[in-house]
């Protein structure tokens, strides 16, 4: 049975922004990320799901029950924001217990529960302190604990790590992943950070200009982007114009046999920079070498086309501008995209 269903949800803000009718089904226990550049409508969609803003059209369902007009406070969801938004006049334990207090759980019980969840997020013993005594990263942990303590049926994360410095960010992501694996809480996360989306998600819903353009698990998303725009967003750099004629794909580097039936016509062949090897049958000239953290980006000119190659192997490290080399292209599962 599907856990959560978004049906034709739409919202427009005058002419400035329109969220096209979005439909998305999320399985119980799944971690789904809404990924996209800023302004693509991912936060709007999350707030529609949360009930913090009212949709122009469409419905949301949970276990088949419609929730569209149920106020946020009665939805039994929890949400984490970019800022921790702890209540400054309450202790950490009182903050975490807040949701239980709203549900009229007895004081002793809710504070005990709060301490347990605090321990889960690595802040055992911090209950008696006040928010200002904690660092930003710790506050965000408290915010996570506060969301988890009410045992939400749906956990919503609105870029909760983007205000943290890189190391803390990774730590928090690991924590969220662990917590998700342990509790199995259905989660929708909004982020513009691809690394984060790929690391955390069971499935990614990629959004562009107010539309969900592709929904897939991270591997599938990267290996077979649905459109040229998705490929560009995911960091593809090599786009080679090709022609499909019946069963063959004619490329500037030779003709390949099409393994699946594909309509004839002109396409762009998207080649992942990581999939190009530095040994092969194609003659090329090194035009550019740039050292990045974790990889070396080499631009190789082949048959008048520039190809970007990413490697950190010894032979990549030996490359210098002007070198003559050979490269090999992937010859299976070619990504062909319509213009």
């Amino acid at each position, binding site marked *: 049975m599907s856990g959560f269903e978004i049906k034709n949800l739409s919202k427009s803000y005058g002419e400035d922004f329109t969220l096209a009718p979005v439909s998305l089904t999320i399985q119980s226990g799944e971690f789904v990320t809404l990924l996209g550049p800023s302004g693509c409508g991912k936060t709007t969609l999350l707030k529609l799901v949360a009930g913090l803003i009212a949709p122009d059209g469409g419905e949301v369902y949970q276990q088949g029950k419609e929730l569209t007009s149920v106020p946020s406070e009665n939805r039994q969801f929890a949400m984490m924001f970019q800022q921790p*938004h702890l209540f400054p006049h309450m202790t950490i334990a009182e903050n975490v217990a807040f949701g239980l207090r*709203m549900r009229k759980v007895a004081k002793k019980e809710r504070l005990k529960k709060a301490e347990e969840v605090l321990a889960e997020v690595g802040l055992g013993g911090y209950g008696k302190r006040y928010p*200002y005594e904690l660092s930003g990263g710790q506050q965000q942990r408290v915010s996570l604990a506060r969301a988890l303590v009410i045992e939400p049926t749906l956990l919503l994360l609105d870029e909760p790590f983007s205000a943290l410095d890189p190391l803390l960010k990774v730590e928090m992501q690991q924590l969220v992943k662990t917590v998700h694996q342990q509790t199995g809480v259905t989660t929708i996360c909004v982020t513009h950070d691809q690394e984060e989306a790929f690391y955390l998600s069971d499935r990614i819903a990629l959004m562009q200009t107010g539309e969900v353009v592709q929904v897939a698990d991270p591997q599938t998303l990267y290996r077979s982007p649905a459109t040229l725009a998705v490929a560009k967003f995911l960091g593809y750099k090599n786009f080679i114009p090709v022609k499909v004629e019946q069963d063959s794909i004619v490329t500037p580097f030779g003709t390949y046999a099409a393994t699946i039936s594909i309509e004839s016509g002109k396409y762009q062949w998207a080649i992942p920079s990581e999939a190009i090897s530095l040994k092969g049958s194609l003659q090329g000239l090194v035009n550019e070498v740039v050292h990045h953290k974790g990889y070396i980006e080499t631009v190789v000119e082949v048959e008048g086309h520039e190809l970007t190659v990413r490697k950190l192997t010894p032979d990549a490290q030996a490359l210098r501008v002007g070198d003559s080399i050979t490269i090999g292209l992937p010859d299976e599962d070619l990504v062909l995209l319509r213009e």
Partner: protein
Amino acid sequence: MRRSSFYLLLIGLIFALPFVPALIASFGGVWRFPTIIPDGINLRAWESVFSPSSRTLSAIFLSLWIAFCVTVINLMVGIPAAYALTRKKLRFQSGIEAVLLAPIFVPALAAVMGIHLTFLRLGLTETVIGVILVHLAPSMPYVIRAAMISFQTMNEEAEDAAKMLGATKSQRFYHVILPHLIPGLTAGVVLSMLISLSQYSVTLLIGAGQVITLPILFVPFLNGGDPAIGSAYTLVFSAVALALVLLLDGGLRSYYATRKGGCHEWI
């Protein structure tokens, strides 16, 4: 002596200085050069102020009661008004704000001249309720302003956070909004009380001498009736105002003492 405490003392002296002549005058003394101690000191004025027939105590209590009612109404009207002005996108937003804050710039008496006629028809003149209503005009802008600033410094998302945790509208107000408003509102409350306490002309016009607040009682003495008694009243009035400020300030401090976490973030 630390420099800061020196300045504190200096400022204290400057504030205390005007009370010295009043104090001397209240004892009926005449202080002329080169006498060191004022001549003719007596307790006549003070005896008169606190004589059972003077109505001083009842005037103090009435003044405080009016100031209290004015402030309660100000809070009940001012908090929602400030909420709407800061959180909602209203049409004519700046126009509404200008009208609500206008009494700061427009003399209350000017408005009350018009109000007087209406109150006469409604039978609100010579009543405490009438006086309370006219005291709202000069004091409400300060409460609205104080509440608006508190709302502006509060992140709206904090309310959303509380909402997602299951807090209903009234729970959000009580647990999240109000604690944030209290420090700013205290300033508004103090101003509202003091402004109400010190109203004279509008109280006189609407109360028509039937509603005897402290200023109504003592201003005639200052205006040539009996400066000694007037001076004594000035000191009584100042003492009442000071006691009020200290009480509210003390209340705020003890609030912080029990919830020490809050003040760090708020101040």
